[in-house]
């Protein structure tokens, strides 16, 4: 007898109902579709942060295509396939460096809209601060060595920890730690000491 499972917009994806990541990676294209449903959203946000939403669509599709072709390389002992997918995405993004730079430069030219404070003067100050932060940070990202940038953005945008970043990039955790330390120092060095985090809260990319 047919039965209906209630599914709606607000329902979470059916994670856990269709096998572990390792089982899905070892499966066929349909099972890779389940893996896509699990992780495409977060991968897109990471890629879109670097190259913009439109290019990110192509990158994410390529990530799953490449992952499918390389699925025999996946370590079945890894419970979570996400670091592996982030690693593939990061490698693919290296081919999109020109588009990544173009995005950073375009962002630096745009004065971000701000909700800001109540007073017009305060709003103007925050708006100026925000524009300056965008320019400083995007410029720093552009000039940063590739590995430092990858580690930094996997930490900040993908929210991976040291071990996961190490897995994603295939480098030792100690290297991740030192690369992240240097990358963050670069950012701190270009930002004013009193950089106002709240001024950036309403920035849109």
């Amino acid at each position, binding site marked *: 007898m047919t*039965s209906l499972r209630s599914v709606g917009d607000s329902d979470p994806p059916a994670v856990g109902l269709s096998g572990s990541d390792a089982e899905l990676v070892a499966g066929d294209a349909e099972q890779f579709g389940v893996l896509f449903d699990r992780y495409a959203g977060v991968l897109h946000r990471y890629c879109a942060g670097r190259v913009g939403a439109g290019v990110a669509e192509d990158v994410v599709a390529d990530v799953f295509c490449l992952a499918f072709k390389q699925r025999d390389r996946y370590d079945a002992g890894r419970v979570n396939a996400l670091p592996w997918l982030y690693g593939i995405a990061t490698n693919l993004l290296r081919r999109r460096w020109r588009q990544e730079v173009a995005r950073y430069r375009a962002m630096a030219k745009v004065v971000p809209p701000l909700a800001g404070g109540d007073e017009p003067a305060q709003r103007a100050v925050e708006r100026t601060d925000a524009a300056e932060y965008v320019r400083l940070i995007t410029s720093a990202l552009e000039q940063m060595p590739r590995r430092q940038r990858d580690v930094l953005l996997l930490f900040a945008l993908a929210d991976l920890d040291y071990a996961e970043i190490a897995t994603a990039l295939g480098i030792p955790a100690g290297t991740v730690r030192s690369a992240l330390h240097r990358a963050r120092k670069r950012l701190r060095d270009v930002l004013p000491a009193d950089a106002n985090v709240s001024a950036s809260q309403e920035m849109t990319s």
Partner: protein
Amino acid sequence: MNTQQAPDERHEIALLRSILDTPAPDNGSLARMRAKALRSMQAPPAPRYRGRVVLVAASVTLVAGLGIAIAIAVQPTNGDSSFALPTSGGPVRPGNPAPLVGADTPAREALITLAAHTGDLRPLAVRPGQFVYSHMRGQGMHGIPVGADGEAQVVSEDETKAWFAADGLRTVRMEMATNLNARPWTDADARKLAGNGKSLPKPHTQVYPNPNGDPKEQLPVSEPKEPGVDHPTLSWVASLPTDPEQLLAVFRAAAGTNTKHDADYLTFKTAASFAARADALLTPAVRTALYQAIALLPGIRRVPGQVDLTGRAGVAIGRDGDRFRSEIILDPVTSRVIGTRMVATAGADVPAGTVIAWSSTDQVVVDSVGATS
């Protein structure tokens, strides 16, 4: 995930995130990515040849490609160079085509995914003098009065073959067979029939135009009908809006209202019936808008896994009404419509989940009345 930094040590990270953060991808974006990824997974790997071997390989590919091109150009249209859609099974895909949507893909995501994958599906190409042959099959359940025992439920099938002129509006010939394969729904229904001396309905065929003049065989056909949701034609379908909300408004208007079912259910049922009836007539843009329009309706649900309709596995998306659920069945590989079903839900006279009716329609262009391919 990372927890190595105290909040007051993260201001540059917070700034970085706020600058680069983007909204989560919407369903349309996810559907495009999914379709592209799955298409790529299905593509055969590119040959890896070098030097002179590359030239040989290229020549073979060219010849093979020409063969495929010729086959596509000739087979569906009997010489017409325009591409016409084969109406059973969908377009041929290389390799082992994988479903575009998974077994647990929710209704809206499934619809949007399939809507993003309609580019290969072209409407029928009809030349002057040709006809649209439409083959409709269905099954229904109806009650036969059996005196004090009330009604005995009988299941039977029907089949309609129709040839339409112009772009599918004017009926040239129609044959409708009803009460095919009639059988009692349950053993209790069989006992009711036997106990009251009732027999199962016999197969009955009606035709239009009727060559014998027997009124019993006369199939009433009123024509010409105005094209519309119930009588789609190629040109009418092509004129439909490709904005999902505007298209949904067309179905809402056609569905009307009644006191038994809510308006969303009626709209879903109307859209699903139209989709099945007009499947071979849909332009890619209208098909995309149609699936997206259905996805806008509140309360739609996905039947997990796949269902079978006339031997074809499909994705069933339904909307509950009063005691019954209307479903549209979509091909998860080709994005085409396979048919519709009516399924009992809680409160119906039959067990919930019982398929009480289904229908499917295949359409193809033919050169003469009576031809079916």
